[in-house]
């Protein structure tokens, strides 16, 4: 065979292969999944976290607790407008004059999905189980720690007696389960509620199917007392890789993507120009702070850990924070997707939001920071390094989460800013920060919490009561802070049932915490998420004016989501499968034919 003939054959084969590939590719148009094959409207949400347990007595991850919000009613819910307590399973509630007994009226129009009535007896059984069974107290035990007795005098009346007054009685985030189903459970510490479907519940959605690390499928509860959700099905689909989840949104395979906890600035920016995609850049519920080891100690007075003693000086703590340029952090690290940090509670919870007064604020002022350090006796040596009382240059260990790029980036800024003050910083970026944290073997750490509409929990973690009993135990403490003045205010707010007065006490606590300087809030990262407008027409955010969608306090987002009319998304999933399979098969056959031809040609060439 001549060289010319060989070339022309090669070209013919190449052309044939290209044509086959083009035909294959042209055959498939992107199927999207807002409408299932049976015409059901399906809302698909991309999630990054796997479910730890479907038992509300064990689950602690955000995804699992969000799903429980959809499966079971709680006594109360939070208004999406302003997060105040609104009726849920309970229609009203009232404390006794001595503040120690709360009586809840349970609604009579809430049914379990197996047709039985949901009653006060179910609620009493749920709380009693948590109070008496250690396994059942795993996830929500802290909610019942102050309960003396819980009874159901009638199907519509629930009575909770307390050991001491507790203002958080309208914020009991405990899913109420059906007694007639759950009383059959033997060991609550091992029962994961993930084998028999559908799972009996009374929330806006009924869980019908679950495959670990694949998906959680819920069906709309048409009999839900507040009204049925508008989508027929809600599917949480698991994406381990955030970029793949964003790709799925871009394609329309999922209707919503949030992130863990947020989309990165790069992802958000790239989605902003996308057709049919709305990026929801909402005020966040988290704070991002710098925590200082205040000298780890236990309730029995024993000290442990090895925090740098210089940090016990308030002036040093203030100096460190005054060297932090929060604006730069917002601009350069969060790329604008965050708000400058002030007090302990983010501004979206406006009744509790507090800002330091003018004279009180630790504004960015490196010169003042240097002056404070000088005043505290930490002067610079000949090398320009500040030395501790032991005569050695100060070098703080800063605990950071290896998986959080923000920690690393901000850590580098701190190294620079504090370096200018003459203070060294070693970044300890670890996968597991919990161990050194609990052992108190750190000087400073990046800290952050999601705040609930009722701020009790994030306030409680700085009380002396939250310290571990002995160094060997684990307390609920975040950072070993223990301050009598703060504790007194905490006790007062917990016993204060008047919302305005309680808010005032909470602000005083924030002010005290700010002055102490052990917790310096640098930023409130925004909740950045995105959804497809050709699949979701409208959805309730929380707060409703400008708020987030994923991980709300309540079921508002998914319950309220309205499907878009546009049917541009309406191809069936199975068509996609067929097209994909055909495409794959054609490619494989094509490859086979190519090799066969090639082999024959080499045999011919030899002859």
């Amino acid at each position, binding site marked *: 065979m001549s060289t010319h003939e060989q070339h022309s054959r090669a070209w013919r084969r190449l052309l044939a292969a290209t044509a086959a590939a083009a035909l294959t590719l042209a055959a*498939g148009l992107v199927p999207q999944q807002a409408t299932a094959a049976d015409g059901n409207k399906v809302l698909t949400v991309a999630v990054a976290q796997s479910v730890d347990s479907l038992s509300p007595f064990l689950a602690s991850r955000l995804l699992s607790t969000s799903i429980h919000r959809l499966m079971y009613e709680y006594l109360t819910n939070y208004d999406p407008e302003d997060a105040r307590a609104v009726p849920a399973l309970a229609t009203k509630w009232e404390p006794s004059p001595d503040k120690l007994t709360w009586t809840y009226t349970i609604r009579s129009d809430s049914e379990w999905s197996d047709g039985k009535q949901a009653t006060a007896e179910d609620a009493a059984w749920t709380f009693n189980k948590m109070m008496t069974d250690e396994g059942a107290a795993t996830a929500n035990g802290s909610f019942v720690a102050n309960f003396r007795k819980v009874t159901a005098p009638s199907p519509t009346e629930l009575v909770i007696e307390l050991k001491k007054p507790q203002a958080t009685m309208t914020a009991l985030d405990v899913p109420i389960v059906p007694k007639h189903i759950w009383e059959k459970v033997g060991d609550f510490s091992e029962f994961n509620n993930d084998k028999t479907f559908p799972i009996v519940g009374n929330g806006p959605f009924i869980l019908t199917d679950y*495959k670990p690390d694949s*998906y959680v499928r819920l069906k709309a509860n048409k009999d839900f007392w507040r009204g049925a959700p508008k989508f027929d099905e809600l599917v949480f689909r698991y994406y381990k*890789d955030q970029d793949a989840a964003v790709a799925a949104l871009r*394609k329309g395979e999922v209707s919503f993507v949030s992130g863990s906890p947020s989309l990165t600035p790069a992802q958000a920016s790239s989605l902003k120009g996308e057709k049919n995609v709305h990026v929801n850049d909402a005020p966040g519920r988290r704070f991002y702070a710098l925590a200082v080891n205040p000298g780890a100690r236990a309730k029995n007075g024993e000290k442990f850990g090895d925090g740098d003693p210089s940090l016990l000086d308030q002036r040093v703590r203030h100096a460190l924070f005054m060297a932090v340029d929060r604006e730069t952090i917002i601009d350069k690290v969060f790329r604008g997707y965050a708000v400058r940090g002030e007090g302990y509670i983010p501004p979206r919870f406006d009744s509790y939001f507090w800002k330091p007064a003018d004279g009180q604020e630790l504004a960015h002022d490196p010169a003042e920071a240097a002056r404070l350090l000088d005043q505290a006796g930490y002067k610079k040596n000949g090398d320009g390094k500040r030395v501790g009382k032991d005569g050695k240059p100060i070098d703080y260990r800063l605990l950071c989460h290896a998986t959080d790029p923000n920690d690393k980036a901000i850590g580098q800024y701190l190294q620079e800013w504090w370096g200018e003050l003459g203070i060294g910083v070693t970044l300890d970026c670890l*996968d597991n920060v919990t161990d050194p944290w609990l052992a108190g073997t750190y000087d400073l750490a990046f800290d952050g919490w999601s705040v609930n509409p009722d701020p009790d929990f994030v306030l409680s973690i700085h009380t002396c009561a939250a310290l571990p009993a002995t160094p060997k135990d*684990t307390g609920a403490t975040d950072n070993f802070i223990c301050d009598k003045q703060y504790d007194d205010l905490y006790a007062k707010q917990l016993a204060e049932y008047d919302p305005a007065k309680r808010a005032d006490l909470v602000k005083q606590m924030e002010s005290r915490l700010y002055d102490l300087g052990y917790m310096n809030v640098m930023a409130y990262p925004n909740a950045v998420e995105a959804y497809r407008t050709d699949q979701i027409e409208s959805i309730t955010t929380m707060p409703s004016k400008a708020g987030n969608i994923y991980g709300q306090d309540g079921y508002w987002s998914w319950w309220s989501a309205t499907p878009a009319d546009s049917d541009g998304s309406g191809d069936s999933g199975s068509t996609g499968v067929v097209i994909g*399979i055909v*495409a794959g098969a054609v490619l494989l056959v094509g490859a086979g034919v190519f090799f066969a031809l090639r*082999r024959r040609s080499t045999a011919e060439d030899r002859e």
Partner: protein
Amino acid sequence: MTADAPSAPAVEAAAPAVREPRARTTRYLRYGAGKVGGAAVSLLAVLVTGFFLFRLIPGDPVKTMTGGRPISAEQLASYRREFGLDLPLWQQFTAYCGKVLTGDLGTSYQFRAPVIDKISEALPNTLVLTGTAFVLYTLLGIVLGTRSAWRHGGLGDRLHTGLALTLYSVPSFWLGLLLITVFAVGMGPIPGMFPTGGMESGGEEGFAYVLDVAHHLVLPVITLVAVEYGQTLLVARSALLDEMGSDYLTTARAKGLRDDLVRRRHAVPNALLPTVTLIFVNLGRTVAGVILVETVFSWPGLGGLFYQALSVPDLPLVQGLFLFFAGTVIVMNTLADLVYPLLDPRVGR
């Protein structure tokens, strides 16, 4: 068979030939016993290492598990009792060994489920993905590798080895993301044809389910095959190149056999041994899953489970998976050792 094959010597040799297979069997059994014994020792070493290695991680696993959650000292003590952490280390170890022998790998901290259940949940998924990829990249590697060697130095050889080396050096997660962007989301005239992740859409049954899984398999399998076939190709190629100058090939050619037959019937079988080693090693790795590919494509397999176990860290799950992965590799290597003498009688003498 050639016409002048002598028949008489064959009869004379009949007597020793009867004894010879028995001797060979004995030799093989001795060789096999040695290999199996070695494997048992390795497994024991893995058991010991796995147990003590993960206990070197500083900190208290129960504190880690409950970190950030308010918990009373009584609850803490009860967790310690529940997971056997209140016992001295040697007692924990003997209890662990006893349990492992009965197939009990403990209970996962984070999922509150037996480790063995979590592994058996994820194992079939991993086998479907990496098993399919394994078959494809092994075949592709051997076919292309032997062809490249046979015509070494030619355009095809240079093209195949070049491409294989390039793909072998490409990070699998990057290639996976690229395939997602191009073939799952769609780019330019190319429509998105495949799912962006996961193993199934959910809600499908019977044949529709099989089709659905196959649809989800395409991109992750292509990623794995693209990244993995190069290794087999290179090993098969170099093994065959070593055989290329052998006299028996010249003889075969001299007999007038077709080139293709010489390659397939004579050269390739003799060059297979190093490739077999690689195949078995890869088979062991197949069970371990490929963490990055499983992550990019959100495949619910063992790789992803291991990642989750490490990030907590979920000690029983990490330990169980470590034992399972290492055990599989050891078993596969032992199987390779046991197969060698069957392929090449010189091995094991």
